[in-house]
């Protein structure tokens, strides 16, 4: 009976955390003067009412899953990667550049090549922060964050200069975007008329592979040990610096791949704003998903739902779509607080006592 109490406790704390997140959101909505109940109803149910909404959720979930998988590898290996946004942009550039440079290659070569280039682009960018951390002990939060700014400027420069669509210059409109990518590099869409694409398959397969990597291989064992307690890992003969570098490279590769998939499947040309915060939302997804692929997939779907729902409320009720960011923040705060409660033996004890006192009262 006592064991089941522990389960009930965790459940109740989680429930309270969700309610708290919803409550914080409601508070902000009240200040905005919105109808709280309707806004939540629209966000949480409207996207699920038709196929279009559901497929759009999946479209959003693909980059979120890919980024979050990389983040999970990095966090589990003891390196906090805040630089997925920049790594994703480098992935977009690399994938688009390869596709534009080699338009005559057949699809079965060009598409994998372009995706690989995207992954490499992200990996290379991440390896800067990884090497700085492994060699010199430079704080990776600072370095990855700063590399984001550099990547954003580089991205903007390339789209306005070397990679701009010549047509934009001729027309004089100067929109910062590349030419349309050759068809041979497009990832196909699954349902006609919808944007849902086969990138979802890539994301799901990689989720399984990441699980196998971390929990079933010797490499994953090393990475997790180095992340969980570097001192003990070193003692056990594990080269911790090498783990940090390789985890960071993997994380960057996942973010770069997310960018490559996004550009070849959804936008089909490099434009500004493709990454659109996925690099940061990916961190939320990874943490909300417990840094585990089995948690990352549902949490990416949930965040996808929030993103689409927020778009819809903006259109239907003129509540800014940035409300999603408020909800994201509230979710992170609630998760962290819930973890504190779940791990606090004294709080748990008070709960048990409260329940058993109730149980002992005469009926």
């Amino acid at each position, binding site marked *: 009976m006592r064991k089941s109490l522990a389960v009930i406790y965790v459940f109740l704390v989680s429930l309270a955390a969700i309610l708290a997140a919803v409550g914080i959101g409601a508070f902000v909505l009240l200040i905005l003067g919105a109808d709280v109940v309707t806004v939540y109803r629209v966000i949480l149910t409207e996207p699920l009412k038709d196929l279009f909404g559901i497929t759009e959720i999946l479209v959003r979930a693909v980059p979120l899953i890919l980024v979050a998988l990389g983040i999970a590898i990095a966090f589990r290996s003891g390196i906090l990667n805040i630089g997925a946004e920049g790594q994703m942009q480098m992935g977009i550039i690399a994938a688009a550049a390869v596709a534009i440079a080699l338009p005559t290659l057949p699809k079965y070569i060009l598409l994998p090549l372009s995706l690989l280039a995207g992954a490499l682009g992200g990996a290379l960018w991440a390896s800067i922060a990884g090497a700085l951390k492994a060699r010199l002990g430079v704080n990776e939060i600072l370095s990855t964050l700063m590399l984001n700014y550099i990547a954003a400027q580089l991205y903007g420069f390339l789209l306005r200069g070397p990679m701009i669509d010549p047509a934009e210059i001729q027309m004089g409109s100067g929109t910062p975007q590349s030419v349309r990518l050759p068809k041979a590099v497009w990832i196909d869409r699954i349902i006609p008329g919808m944007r849902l694409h086969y990138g979802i398959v890539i994301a799901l397969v990689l989720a399984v592979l990441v699980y196998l990597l971390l929990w079933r291989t010797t490499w994953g064992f090393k990475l997790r040990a180095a992340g*969980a*307690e570097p001192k003990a890992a070193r003692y056990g003969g594990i080269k911790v610096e090498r783990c940090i570098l390789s985890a960071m490279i993997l994380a960057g590769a996942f973010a770069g791949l997310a960018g490559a998939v996004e550009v070849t499947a959804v936008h089909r040309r490099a434009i500004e704003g493709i990454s659109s915060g996925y690099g940061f939302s990916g961190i939320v997804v990874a943490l909300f998903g417990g840094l585990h692929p089995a948690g990352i997939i549902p949490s990416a779907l949930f965040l996808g739902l929030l993103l689409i729902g927020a778009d819809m409320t903006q259109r239907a009720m003129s509540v800014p779509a940035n409300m999603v960011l408020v909800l994201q923040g509230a979710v992170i705060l609630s998760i962290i607080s819930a973890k504190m409660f779940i791990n606090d033996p004294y709080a748990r004890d008070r709960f048990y006592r409260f329940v058993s006192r109730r149980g002992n009262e005469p009926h």
Partner: protein
Amino acid sequence: MDEKIQNLKIMGITKRFPGVLACDAIDLEVGENQVFALVGENGAGKTTLMNMLMGLYQPDEGEIRINDRKVQFHTPAEAFAAGIGMVHQHFMLVPNMTVAENVALGAREFHSLGRLDLGGAKKRIKDISARYNLPVQPESYIWQLSVGEQQRVELIKTLCFGARFLILDEPTSALTPQETEELLDLLRRMSEDMSIIFISHKLQEVTSLSDQVGILRHGKMVFTGPTSAQSPAKLAALMTGHEVNLPKNECPEEGGLRMLSIKGLKVRSDRGFLAVDGLDLAIHSGEILGLAGVSGNGQKELADALAGLRPVESGVIDLEGRNITNLSPQEIISNGFGYIPEDRNHEGIVPSFSIKENLILKDFASPEFSQGPFLSLARADKYAQALKERYDIRSPSIKTQAGSLSGGNIQKVILARELARKPKVLVAVYPTRGLDMGAEEFIHTRLLELREGGAPILLISEELEELMNLSDRIAVIFKGRIIDTVRGCDATLKGLGLRMAGLVDGAEGGAA
């Protein structure tokens, strides 16, 4: 003024956790100016009982009385208000704050309108340190202080909060023998002013300090009575439920192959000075070489350097004829080097990993536990299960997080891993520090077994009795060098103590 605590009674207190009866109808009484020693093995329920006294947990049944009035504490603040103060086993100090700031932090009276009254805190610290002869600089930062000094700060902090009844949870487990002596003297002086509950499993300390002793076993108080009538051996038997015989190394014959030899070793400490400064040492097969010394004389750096975890500046480490100086930890491990590190909680194990994962920490990539790039989890399960039984690791399963185990069981996990690898040489650093007698007996027995099997052991310890019980030879380290070596059975407490202080009189024991 606050009323003196003349009498504290715990009556029939019971506490259950999911699946565990932590305290079972416990009675206990502490009178005025008494020192009550609460004794028991790890996990016997001592800390849980005291946490109830401090308002951290609520008892399921029973009551607490102070001066024959029933009290109920819902928070530690309420216990403090009633005059009860506790010094926890793990210090609760903020390292990058000063002593005065740490004291002011927890005492409401020094908070005024968002400001800390540091002057008031300093004055209080000075008063108390003068009264009990507890030298402490209020301006020192905690991180600058030694473990013994931090202990004093904890005591002063508790007294500054107005404690008139002290609880000390294993206060000596991290102290050097010298610091322990000082603390015991201090507590004797303090008991003239207040009552003290002293939790320990070091029975020498218990018999030398306490008036009354209570023994907890598996959540039950199995004995209470005056200490003076009890011998340490009797207490040990009551505590563990069986006769405890710490095994001894019968005085051995000389000789054996030279297995590990260290010549002219120089190693720098974290702060950059030469902590090991031209050290020579040789260890032969089938012997336990005890390394005695006051902590901080280069023991940590020596052990790190042997394991490849710290660069060797100059000198040679030779393991069975192979030069292993400055090899990587991985290479040294694969040369048959076993190592029980000082920091068992963060270096000896990965605390968030399961027992199983910790047992294969050094071998996960070996053919035994892997197949190509994949781990062979089924074989690891079987291996871990066998070791769990053979080394009596008490936990619900091999999937239990290693960090959640008691100190003794964590040490058993480390010991199991290291011994099961059949090391050619084992270095054990403070292997029984802070452990109860049952665990100590177990570990000593295993170390002697390994010695019987021919593997040499370098045993680094501060416990002179442990060294004298186990060692064939005892070397004394002082300022990074071996200043003398004596045969284990010729060693005396006095002789070792003098040598540890850097004095070699040559009057006893022969150099080996």
